[in-house]
């Protein structure tokens, strides 16, 4: 398989937010029994039906790269994990709804990943200050996922949802809030599942349709498999 055929999505976030549990849930449709520290990067593959329910439906394999660590890691760790950020087609940003700092750390995370992106449409970062325009121009699709939703007491839910709404506006991304130990949140037909599906469709479209539309007919979907 040539490298043209690959669809790569990064999963980023602070350590302990639940990225490994999330990736396991997305790829194996099962809850992860014994989460442990991710050293380096762990990859898993999700089978995704592009344009499900339409005549153009095709099966695609999306690679989810779960990169471990924190934004405050040593510079040697940061330069090493930059290796994983090449040719990325989509980014899932994961934060812990019970920990505000993990949400704030998503800004440096996304900058770290996007400024290493080697594609010509990547954003250019000057001094680490970020504003919405940079994310609006960004062509890599983003998805925001908040975990440990079940651990928030009922009376605080509204505040948390308001906060995440601001976050998703900043990143110009859709948001999903769930609990990684409960597959019910991503049950088929739920609004979360629809958002997830739309995100992956967008990633695949960007991957294959950034070129001249006339070339679209030439590259068929058989390359997905």
């Amino acid at each position, binding site marked *: 398989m040539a490298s043209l055929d690959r669809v790569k999505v990064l999963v980023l976030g602070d350590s302990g937010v639940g990225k490994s549990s999330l990736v396991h849930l997305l790829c194996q449709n099962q809850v992860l029994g014994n989460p442990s520290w991710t050293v380096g990067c762990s*990859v898993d593959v999700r089978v995704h039906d592009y344009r499900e329910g339409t005549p153009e439906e095709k099966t695609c394999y999306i690679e989810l790269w779960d990169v471990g660590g924190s934004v405050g890691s040593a510079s*040697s760790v940061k330069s090493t994990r930059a290796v994983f950020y090449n040719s990325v087609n989509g980014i899932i940003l994961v934060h812990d709804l019970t*920990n505000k700092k*993990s949400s704030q750390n998503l800004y440096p995370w996304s900058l770290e990943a996007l400024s290493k992106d080697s594609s010509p449409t990547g954003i250019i970062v000057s001094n680490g200050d970020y504003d919405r325009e940079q994310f609006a121009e960004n062509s890599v699709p983003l998805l925001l996922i908040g975990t440990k939703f079940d651990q928030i007491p009922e009376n605080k839910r509204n505040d948390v949802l308001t906060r995440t709404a601001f976050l998703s506006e900043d990143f110009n991304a859709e948001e999903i809030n769930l609990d990684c130990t409960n597959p019910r949140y991503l049950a088929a037909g739920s609004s979360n599942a629809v958002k997830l599906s739309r995100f992956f469709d967008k990633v695949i479209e960007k991957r294959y349709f950034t070129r001249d539309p006339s070339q679209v007919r030439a590259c068929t979907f058989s390359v997905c498999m």
Partner: protein
Amino acid sequence: MSFFVDSVIMVTSQVLFFGFGWLFFMRQLFKDYEVRQYVVQVVFSITFAFSCTMFELIIFEILGVLSSTSRYFHWKLNLYVILLVLIFVVPFYIGYFVVSNIRLLHRQRLLFSCVVWFTFMYFFWKLGDPFPILSPKHGILSIEQLISRVGVIGVTLMALLSGFGAVNCPYTYMSYFLRNVTDSDILALERRLLQTMDMIVSKKKRIAMTRRQMYQRGEEQNKQTGFWGMIKSVTSSPSGSENLSLIQQEVDALEELSRQLFLETVDLQATKERIEYSKTFQGKYFNFLGYFFSIYCVWKIFMVKFWSQHISFILVGIIIVTSIRGLLITLTKFFYAISSSKSSNVIVLVLAQIMGMYFVSSVLLMRMSMPLEYRTIVTEVLGELQFNFYHRWFDVIFLVSALSSILFLYLAHKQAPEKHMSL
């Protein structure tokens, strides 16, 4: 009147230390976490404040600042508070937070944390038996009993850390020991890492594809009812799942390999950065210090009992500052390495306990380094402990720790070049 002025000075400095501990906690240790239990932050800052005050009192003693009666009073006060914190408050809260994390015991956590605390006190008391640290004329509940035990734990810790530090410090900073790392070495390792990741991805795709096919075939199988359907399902699935488990084993091995390669690459990057740093002005300065301290450390290892009184006073000052700084840095690194949002409270409290014990025993040991005329106050305040025991104990543990660190670093250094020769 002068007592009042002195007390004001002491309290101000304690408040300053408390603020510094608070800031350190917020800005460094708990940078990535939300502080939900403020009691943890308060306890940590109090331990830090009173520990630093003890050092401050020693310096005041030597410089002759403040009147001697107020100094004596504040020594006693400080000591009582810090013993209270180290023996009652911190262990109780450690037990409390550990118990709160365990779901089964959550309901009656107060009860269980008291149980934990009593267990701690039992072992803490038993600690005194094998060591000849007390003269028989002390009663059961005297303060000397408590200090002596805290002293033993703290001195052991200090000796272990100093022994390791004495060997590790020159090893880290001296460029003589830095392995030669080039950019092409790093690039080659990164390429291997990415290749391994690609292999993992392609195998996982095969697993996913096979699973999907099995699932779809399984659906069609279910449509076939009756006898033949059952026979067919028995004969067709085993080969599929055997194949899967084989590929899964290969994937597990490859994942382990990818982790190793990642850690090796991080190691090489860190070495390369250290080489670059050593070429800068700051790096050269630390390199020189490294040579200086390595000579000092070697001298210390072999000639532990020989101290010149006045050089040792300056060294006492340097030791205080560098050991506080070194301890805080080590604690921070340790904290980042092992904490998670659940255990962060417990770990910070354990670190506060270690820090407190470390500082108390520093005071015990420093008595030896101080010029004779200042030793009396420490002896007066701390009572008649068998100080000689502590010094001998420190020397023994220091020697053991230093020698085993030398052995450990030698083995690690020896093994490393061979790893990279295979590139």
